[in-house]
C-alpha cells in the first residue's frame, strides 16, 4: 500500500496521574503517526493506556508532556487550529452502541443530528442532502434504509446498533474515524458484521483513516494495515500488521497472539 500523507501524530506523549506514592505513568513516551487512508490498530489489555492515549490524540485531555498534531496543525487547547480541525474532521464510535445512541430517537434522527448541527435543516436542499446521505451511509454498513431508518435503538440487535453508530460516524465525511473497542460489547456474529462494515467504508472511502482500539488481535487482523501494541503505557511493538502478527518480537505480543488463537 502506498502511504498517504500524515494525518495525525503524537510525539513523546506522556500522561501521569496522581502524585507521590500514588503517581502512575499511564502513557509513557509514546510516538505514533497515522497516515491518511490507513487503518491503525491500537492493541493492548485493560489498563495498558489505550483509552488514555486515545483521549490525548483526540485533544480531549492535555498530556503531561508531548505534542499532538492533526492535518499539520498543532492540537493544543480548544482554540487551536488543530483541535478545531480534529473536531470537524474526526468521528468516534464507542464501545457500547446502546449507550451512545439516544433511546428516544429513531435511527434517522440520530444519524442526521451531526449534519443538522453543521448545516442547519432550514433549507430544503440541505434537508434533501441529509436524507440522501443518511440512506447512503446506512447502505454502506449493510443495513437497508427502508427497513431501519424509522426504528428505535431498542428494536435493533447489538450488531445492527453498532453499525448504525458506524454509519452515523460517516455522516460528516470525516478524515479520521476512531473506534474504541467497537466489537467487545457484541457477540461474535455481530463482530463480523461490524468488521465487514468497516471494510466497506475503507473501500468506498480510501482516503479515510481509521484507528481501531482493541484488546484482541484476532478481531483486527482483517482490517489493520499497521498495529501498535501498548503494554503498561509503553509501545512494546509496532509495525505492519503482517510483521507484527507473523513475526512478533515482544513477549507481550506473543501472549496476545496465543490468546487470539483457537
Amino acid at each position, binding site marked *: 500500500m502506498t502511504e498517504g500523507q500524515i494525518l495525525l501524530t503524537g510525539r513523546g506523549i506522556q500522561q501521569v496521574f496522581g502524585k507521590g506514592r500514588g503517581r502512575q505513568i499511564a502513557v509513557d513516551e509514546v510516538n505514533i503517526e497515522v497516515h491518511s487512508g490507513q487503518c491503525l490498530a491500537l492493541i493492548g*489489555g485493560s489498563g495498558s493506556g489505550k483509552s488514555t492515549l486515545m483521549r490525548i490524540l483526540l485533544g480531549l485531555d492535555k498530556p503531561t508532556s508531548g505534542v499532538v498534531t492533526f492535518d499539520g496543525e498543532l492540537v493544543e487547547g480548544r482554540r487551536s487550529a488543530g483541535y478545531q480541525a480534529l473536531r470537524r474532521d474526526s468521528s468516534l464510535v464507542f464501545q457500547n452502541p446502546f449507550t451512545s445512541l439516544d433511546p428516544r430517537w429513531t435511527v434517522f434522527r440520530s444519524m442526521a443530528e451531526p449534519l443538522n448541527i453543521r448545516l442547519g435543516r432550514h433549507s430544503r436542499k440541505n434537508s434533501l442532502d441529509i436524507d440522501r446521505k443518511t440512506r447512503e451511509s446506512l447502505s454502506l454498513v449493510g443495513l437497508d434504509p427502508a427497513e431501519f431508518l424509522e426504528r428505535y435503538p431498542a428494536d435493533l440487535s*447489538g450488531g445492527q446498533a453498532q453499525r448504525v453508530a458506524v454509519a452515523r460516524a460517516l455522516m460528516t465525511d470525516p478524515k479520521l474515524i476512531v473506534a474504541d473497542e467497537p466489537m467487545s460489547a457484541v457477540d461474535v*456474529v455481530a463482530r463480523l458484521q461490524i468488521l465487514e462494515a468497516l471494510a466497506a467504508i475503507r473501500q468506498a472511502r480510501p482516503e479515510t483513516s481509521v484507528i481501531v482500539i482493541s484488546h484482541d488481535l*484476532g478481531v483486527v487482523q482483517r482490517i489493520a494495515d499497521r498495529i501498535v501494541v501498548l503494554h503498561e503505557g509503553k509501545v512494546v511493538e509496532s509495525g505492519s500488521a503482517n510483521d507484527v502478527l507473523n513475526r512478533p518480537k515482544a513477549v507481550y505480543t506473543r501472549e496476545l497472539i496465543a490468546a487470539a488463537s483457537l
Partner: protein
Amino acid sequence: MSVDVKRLGVCINGKPIVRDIDLHISDGERVGLIGSSGSGKSMISKALLGLLPTNAQVSGSAMVGGIQVVEASEPVLASLRGRYVGTVFQNPASSLNPVLSVGKQIELPLKLHYDLDKVDRQARVARMLEKVGLDATIAKKYPSELSGGQQQRVGIATALITSPRLIIADEPTTALDSITQRRIVDLLVELVDKAGASMLFITHDFSVLSCATTRCYVLECGQIADSGQTAALLADPQANSTRKLVDAAHELTLQRK
C-alpha cells in the same frame, strides 16, 4: 451435581422467551450453552437459579440436584443457591459489592449459609484466595482497587467458597481482555475439575467454549437448535445456527502465515 431440564419454557408478559428446552448435565460434567445475543441463554441460567423476574411464567421441569426449581419456594431456592450452586457473572465490577472488602465479600456466603466460627471462615477465605491465584493482602482491598481480571478472580472465589456442586458461569470472560480471558477460563476449569463439580458455561464464543467444556447445546431464538461434543461441533458444524457461530469464531481467530 446433575441438572435435568425437560420441556422448560419461560414466557415474559405472555411472550415466549425460551421454549421446549431439554438439557442435561451429568455429575462432574462441564457443559456449554452457546448462542448469539438475545437467544435466551441467560434466561435459562436464571430459571435454574430461580432468579427470573416476577412477571415470568415458567413451564416444564428443571431438576437441579434432587430439587425441582420450577415453582420451588424462595427459602428452598435460597438454600440451593447458597450451598449447592455457585454463580459467576459477566461483569465482576457490577456483581461485587463495592463497599465490601474482598475478604468480607468472599466470606459472606459462608456466614449466611454455614455455621462456622470466624477463625474457620477466615482460614477458608485465605485458602480460597490462594486457589484463585490472588495474594493474601488483597483481602483488605475493595473491588474498585482491583483490575478486571482480579475482580473476576474474586467473583470466582465467592462462587466457589461454599464448595458448590454446580457452577453456573454466565459469560464470565466477556468483559475481560483477551489474555485475561484465557487465564480465567483455565482457572475456572481447573477449580471445577479439582472439586469434581459440574459446570454450565454460557457464552457466544466457540473459541472460549472449546477451552471450557466437553459438550454443548446451541441455542437459537429460544430453542435448542443443536447439541453434541464441543470439539465435534467446532470441527464439523451441521446445523445452520452452529455453523454461523463456528464460522464467526474461525474468522475472529488469528490466522497466521
